[in-house]
């Protein structure tokens, strides 16, 4: 088990490293960050000055090794550029330094730290809605199998899977925010309670596809479980249906659902780009778009890094959770 986790984690680091390398060089193919950040009006000496400060005048491989933290720092404006004894310091991700944002005039860690809690609020609410709506719809559908309520729920899940957020988002804004006035018209709000209120509609929209998937999985598992002998025995003994469902069926359905949650986490955390844009929710998704548009390389790299870590962690946690829930599964390498 420990061996498996270590091997998987090592492999995960390798995957993340290759993605980071690829994106780092891609950014330089995409354009000149100095020109994009300073704008078309910038004078040549301003651009040269910016490049010297950020180390952008160095060869790209040197910049990359400095970013990794295996070569001395090339960013002259970094406090770690020169040590007290005059030697050059390191300022890469190995030292836990994500650099300084080009357009926010703050450290990348501060920018992310500012945005991450907002995205986490959205993501955790979305998972909550997915589970509540998805699981209960799945249970109802399975218990009324092949009756009209089952057909209706299954049809609804199909619609849910087929509706992209950029369709449901604007329509829900139109309906629930504009016509009915139940929810605010996007934005983030001013105090914690207000943040929560502003997060409700976007997280519901974010939860549609997940809820539909969970409902289908739950229904399938429950139908499967209800066929088992021990469940029939439990029913014959007179165990109320609600307990049968809770004690046996939900437990069985937990496995695939935990896996699905694990796999969906990176997309909830890093991939809510479209939902955040529609609802003007200033989280990591909006930060991603902004940083790409302005070629804010340190922020782009940090977002990619976080996304990679989230994907690998999600996969690993899903595997571990499944092994913990199901004694039949032994993790092998």
């Amino acid at each position, binding site marked *: 088990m420990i061996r498996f986790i270590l091997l998987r984690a090592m*492999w995960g680091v390798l*995957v*993340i490293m*290759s*993605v980071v390398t*690829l*994106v780092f060089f*891609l*950014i330089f*193919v*995409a*354009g000149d960050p100095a020109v994009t950040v300073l704008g078309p009006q910038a004078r040549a000496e301003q651009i040269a000055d910016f490049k010297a400060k950020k180390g952008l005048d160095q060869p790209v491989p040197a910049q990359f090794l400095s970013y990794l933290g295996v070569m001395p720092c090339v960013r002259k404006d970094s406090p770690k550029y020169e040590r007290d004894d005059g030697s050059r310091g390191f300022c890469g991700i190995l030292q836990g330094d994500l650099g300084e944002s080009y357009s926010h005039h703050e450290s990348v860690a501060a920018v992310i730290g500012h945005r991450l809690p907002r995205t986490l609020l959205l993501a955790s609410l979305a998972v909550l809605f997915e589970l509540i709506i998805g699981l209960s719809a799945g249970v109802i559908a399975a218990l009324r199998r092949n009756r009209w309520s089952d057909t209706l729920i299954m049809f609804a899940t*199909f*619609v849910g*899977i*087929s*509706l*992209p957020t*950029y*369709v449901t988002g*604007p*329509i829900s*804004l*139109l309906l629930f925010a*504009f016509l009915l006035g139940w929810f605010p018209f996007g934005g983030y709000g001013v105090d914690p309670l207000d943040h929560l209120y502003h997060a409700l509609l976007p997280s519901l929209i974010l939860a549609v596809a997940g809820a539909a998937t969970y409902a289908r999985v739950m229904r399938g598992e429950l139908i499967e479980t209800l066929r088992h002998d021990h469940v029939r025995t439990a029913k014959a003994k007179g165990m109320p249906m609600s307990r049968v469902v809770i004690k046996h069926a939900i437990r069985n359905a937990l496995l695939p659902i935990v896996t699905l949650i694990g796999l969906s986490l990176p997309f909830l955390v*890093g*991939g809510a*780009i*479209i939902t955040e*844009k529609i609802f003007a929710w200033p989280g990591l998704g909006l930060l*991603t*778009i902004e940083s*790409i548009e302005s070629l804010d390389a340190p922020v*782009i790299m940090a*977002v*990619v890094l976080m*996304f*990679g870590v989230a*994907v*690998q962690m999600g996969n690993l946690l899903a595997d571990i959770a499944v092994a913990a829930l199901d004694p039949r599964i032994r993790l092998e390498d």
Partner: protein
Amino acid sequence: MDSRAFRRFRRNKGALGGLVLVVAVTVLGLAGPWLAPYDPVEQFTDALLLHNGLPAGPGIEPGHWLGGDVLARDELSRLLSGARVSMLVAYLATALAVLIGVTLGLVSGYVGGRLDTFLMRVVDVVLSMPFLLIAIVMQRVWDAPGIWTICVVLGVLSWTTLARITRAKTMEARELDYIQAARALGLRHVRILARHVLPNVMGPIIAIATILVARMIIAESALSFLGLGVRPPTASWGSMLNDSQSLLLGVPRLTLYPAVLISMAVFGFNLFGEGLRDAFDPKD
């Protein structure tokens, strides 16, 4: 498709409904630009722009059945020519993904060993790539991004599921007696793969590819919705959603038309694909 799978498919009403939708949107994509009554980029500022600055509604101006869009262009013509772009991108990107995924999956599953391990690691790396980010960066790399860039980006980033499924099925097929026999006879590997293994793994590939078309429709529209897909003034359903964002409250119909079409297309391909999957691989 063998006859049992075909019968199972025919009994599945949802799948048949999906097929009808798929045929409908495909025909729309093929014939759309010819059916369009006007040039989709021509502006009718006199006829389709009202005095309050909003576009004219449906039926106000004769001939412009769905009225005008944000820039006073004929909405119906844009929807119809947008159908071509959206469907073309979806089909081409899927074709590319099938080409890459199935080839790598076949080779990986058939050859096995170190090559297999390596190729599956490549799958892991591609899966860890932030899709939108790569798509956006690629758009900037190719200075004149058009429909082709989007197809390549979408195709290159979405072959992983297909590769995994094809690999698993190929590994099963490899052990079948007649394929062992073909190998023992010394047939060339390429021939064995193309003539004997591929037909065996075709069913699930077709089903996954169909669902992938739905995903590609969503992905293309998502990029265009973010203003990173097809360039204006070209219309795609996603870019029309993007155009209409500013008038969401004033003229909601401009959002609804492309939204309904995208949802219908995605819904159709999903239903059809699921039906195929159930037909090839019945669980109940």
